[in-house]
């Protein structure tokens, strides 16, 4: 018989592997909480950037005729102040919007400071090894021994209460997290083959540190950073609440809550809205951070 093929191969339908960014986005988008958080963050950033345009009033202007006006949906509410006013007649909504700008700046500053310092320290510890490593890690241990809020309070007590000092204090408190993470990542990378190869090719230490190893440690650091944002905002607000952070009339959300307890009976909105703003912002950052971690961690994908 002729025409009978004996070697048969089955064509296997192959898909081009999707680019890694698309893969990442796909994994991230599976998490609806994370996507929701991202939307909230985008809105927040827009509000913060365009605060001058979006806010109906100035955050520090006092309207003498309108102390403790209720929000618009309550009896006695006034449409010019949709969320009411505080005890010296300042518009809540405007203060909240400008507060968003402040909180984002605080978060960004804290994370940038701790992230860069921590990464440098962590990488140095991993590469230098020996005594430098031990000393640096001990230093971090000592910072960790103090409850974070307490340490921040002490630092502010030394430096004086102000928004900047509070930001600095929070950055110090969050430092050990990044340092340890950078060090651990770097150590595990250092053991890998490609590093040994680069080293034997004669690469200098600095080059090795920043060009080769650092990019591969980025993933956990990014996750930590996004979660660090939320911690920074919470701690800065706590300091503000205790009177140790931003000082009035600065519309920082924690500071806004500082004297608010006395109004619990008369003006619940002075108490509720700033904290709600903190909660929503921190929640958004946490959700995004969790989503990032799940998307970047191959083990968790089903």
């Amino acid at each position, binding site marked *: 018989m002729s025409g009978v093929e*004996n070697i048969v*191969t089955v064509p296997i339908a192959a898909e081009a592997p999707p680019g890694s960014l698309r893969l990442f986005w796909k994994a991230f988008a599976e998490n609806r909480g994370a996507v929701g958080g991202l939307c909230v963050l985008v809105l927040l950033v827009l509000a913060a950037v365009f605060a001058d345009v979006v806010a109906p009033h100035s955050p520090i202007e006092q309207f003498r005729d309108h102390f403790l006006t209720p929000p618009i949906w309550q009896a006695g509410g006034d449409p010019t102040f949709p969320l009411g006013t505080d005890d010296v007649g300042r518009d809540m909504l405007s203060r909240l919007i400008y507060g968003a700008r402040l909180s984002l700046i605080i978060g960004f500053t804290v994370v940038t400071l701790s992230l860069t310092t921590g990464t440098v320290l962590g990488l140095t510890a991993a590469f230098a090894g020996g005594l430098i490593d031990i000393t640096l890690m001990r230093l971090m241990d000592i910072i960790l021994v103090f409850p974070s809020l307490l340490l921040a309070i002490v630092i502010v007590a030394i430096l004086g209460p102000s928004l900047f000092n509070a930001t600095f204090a929070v950055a110090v408190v969050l430092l050990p997290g990044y340092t340890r993470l950078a060090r651990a990542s770097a150590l595990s990378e250092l053991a890998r083959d490609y590093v040994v190869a680069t080293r034997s090719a004669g690469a200098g230490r600095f080059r090795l540190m920043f060009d080769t190893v650092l990019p591969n440690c980025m993933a956990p650091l990014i996750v930590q950073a996004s979660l660090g944002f939320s911690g920074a905002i919470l701690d800065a607000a706590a300091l503000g609440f205790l009177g140790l952070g931003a000082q009035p009339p600065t519309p920082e959300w924690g500071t806004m809550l500082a004297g608010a307890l006395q109004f619990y009976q008369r003006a619940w909105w002075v108490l509720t809205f700033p904290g709600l703003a903190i909660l929503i912002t921190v929640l958004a950052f946490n959700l995004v951070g969790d989503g990032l971690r799940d998307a970047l961690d191959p083990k968790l994908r089903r």
Partner: protein
Amino acid sequence: MALLEIRNLAVEFATARGRFRAVEGIDIDVDESEVLCIVGESGSGKSVAMLAVMGLIAFPGRVTADVMRFGGTDLLGLSPRQRRHVVGKDIAMVFQEPMTSLNPCYPVGWQIGEALRVHRAVPRRKVRARVVQLLEQVGIPSPATRLRAFPHQLSGGMNQRVMIAMAIACNPRVLIADEPTTALDVTIQKQILDLLVALQREHRMALVLITHDMGVVAETAHRVQVMYAGQTVETQATDSLFAAPRHPYTAALLDALPERARGRARLPTIPGVVPGIDDRPSGCLFQPRCAFATPHCVAVRPALAEVPGGRSRCHYWLDDAGHPTGHDRAVAA
């Protein structure tokens, strides 16, 4: 009637990439005192099939079968609670990785005793003595001192013996061993296998031994079932299988044994890999790797058919000389 009787077993997993049939159309028969070996490469579905029998396949897996009977009882119709009275007591299983298959937080004596206590096989006050007896049976020296040992304090071979002791604690009628020696040192492997066979003979248990090692099959099995890509491709008695394999895959497996390579410079291997979820061939699942494949093999999936010696799933099952029957042209391998 066989002790364990299974017809048309199928296990399907709903994965992100579609429905995957890990196992389909499997028939199994095991009698009391019989040793059945299930052979196949990784990915052949041999473990999944036995896990399905034990009821250990969880969502998103789905187990279906026309018949699944143990000692006359229909296993499929049992409620989970009723099934738990059978599994672990009358049907027991030993797993591949002894170091991770024992609970690290509890001493081994406790873990063996648990099977006895929960299944009420032995009155409470006699549990300890029975556990010592079991440890002795599986060849663990000074058993009484080992009762309080933790798994991480014992070697792989010892842990595997503990697992076996745990499995036979309630005198099961069927023992399933899933590659029990693969993770062990070569020197220990033979000891464990000998132990299993000795226990099987002594207790007249049915032993289902899953393995990928044809050497083990030759030494221990009464009957052999060869699996490929989730299907049974051949079943035969051991002697006749080794003398005259009826399926090209089985023949290739046997050819790859070092003992069979007489005078050849290179060991023959089977080109290609076992198909996974993405690349299920049409027609016969083995056809992309088969030296005797024809367009008919690509077009039509063969059924498991009766052949001299047993059954084979091949359009051109091999004759006693190893040539495919009814083939138009034999192709040199």
